[in-house]
């Protein structure tokens, strides 16, 4: 690797920037029909379910219990942000306990 750091930085920034704007720019050219709108509205739930599933598969008992607690707490408390923060506290506690 002989390239200087600023050049490396520029190349990495360009790739990251491209990913941030490409989908948005592409969709400006596509008319958003009700069908496309339904697909776009469904992506957050699918992505978040995917993220949760991967964490469950990669994690152990502590992670599984904490994420289960998050789901229950969201329903009980009615605040997803509070439930998520409590879930992080639960996993920290379980790991500290050696689980």
């Amino acid at each position, binding site marked *: 690797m002989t390239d200087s750091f600023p050049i490396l*930085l520029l*190349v*990495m920034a360009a790739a990251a920037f491209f990913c941030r704007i490409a*989908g948005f720019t592409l969709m400006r050219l596509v008319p958003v029909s009700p069908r496309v709108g339904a697909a776009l509205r469904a992506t957050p*739930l699918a992505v978040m*379910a995917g993220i949760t599933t991967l*964490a469950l598969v990669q994690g152990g008992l502590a992670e599984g219990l904490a994420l289960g607690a998050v789901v229950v707490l969201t329903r009980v408390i009615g605040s*997803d942000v509070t439930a998520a923060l409590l879930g992080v506290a639960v996993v920290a506690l379980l790991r500290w306990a050696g689980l």
Partner: protein
Amino acid sequence: MAGVSFTWDGFWRGVRDGMPLGVSIFAYGLGFGLVAAQAGFGIGKAVATSAAIYSGSAQLAAVNLLQTGSATLWALFATILVINARYILFGAALQPWLGQVGAPKAYGSLLLLGDANWMFCMRAIAAGETDRAYLAGTGAPMLAGWLSGTAIGAGAVSFLPEPQALGFDLMLPAFAAAMTTAMVRRGTDLVPVAVGAAAALAIAGTLGPAAAIIGAGLAGGAVAALMHREPG
């Protein structure tokens, strides 16, 4: 679409909602700073990397690649493209909402796009958020946390507790699980959840987690499009 606005009011509402994200991203930043310091980056280089790429997973991969000593510019570019490809999907999902304001505001906001604030923003949009500055607002505390965390971590503060011991690595999945639970209101909402989970499971084993997240979003969107029935 009802009212379209881009105000400081909406920005600060986003900042307030994004504060817990900023704290957890700060802990991630410490982790990246430590890794960067071990790879021979000084504080300046580490912070510059965090500012230029602003994506934890992509930066860790880039630092790993640079450490091998045989990384080409193209390999570096491709690595970040592959790991961050999910942002293409995130930006597409935001477009019908964010595209209602002018290009400078929209593209400026996209610079602050991250995983967690995309989730926050999509939830807010579903709940009727009309102020487009909300996205940049949620991103601001995350960027501040990411840069300050990187700086302190790269300062090789080795007596810091491991971010993992405090559970911060579970922050993103915990928010994902909580928001999924909150956003499922009808039985049909469970369809993208099930499709996303199944797709992620099927893809992760062979193509890795980055592809699994994109696959989950694409599969969920495709099934929703197929199930869509025009009213009347």
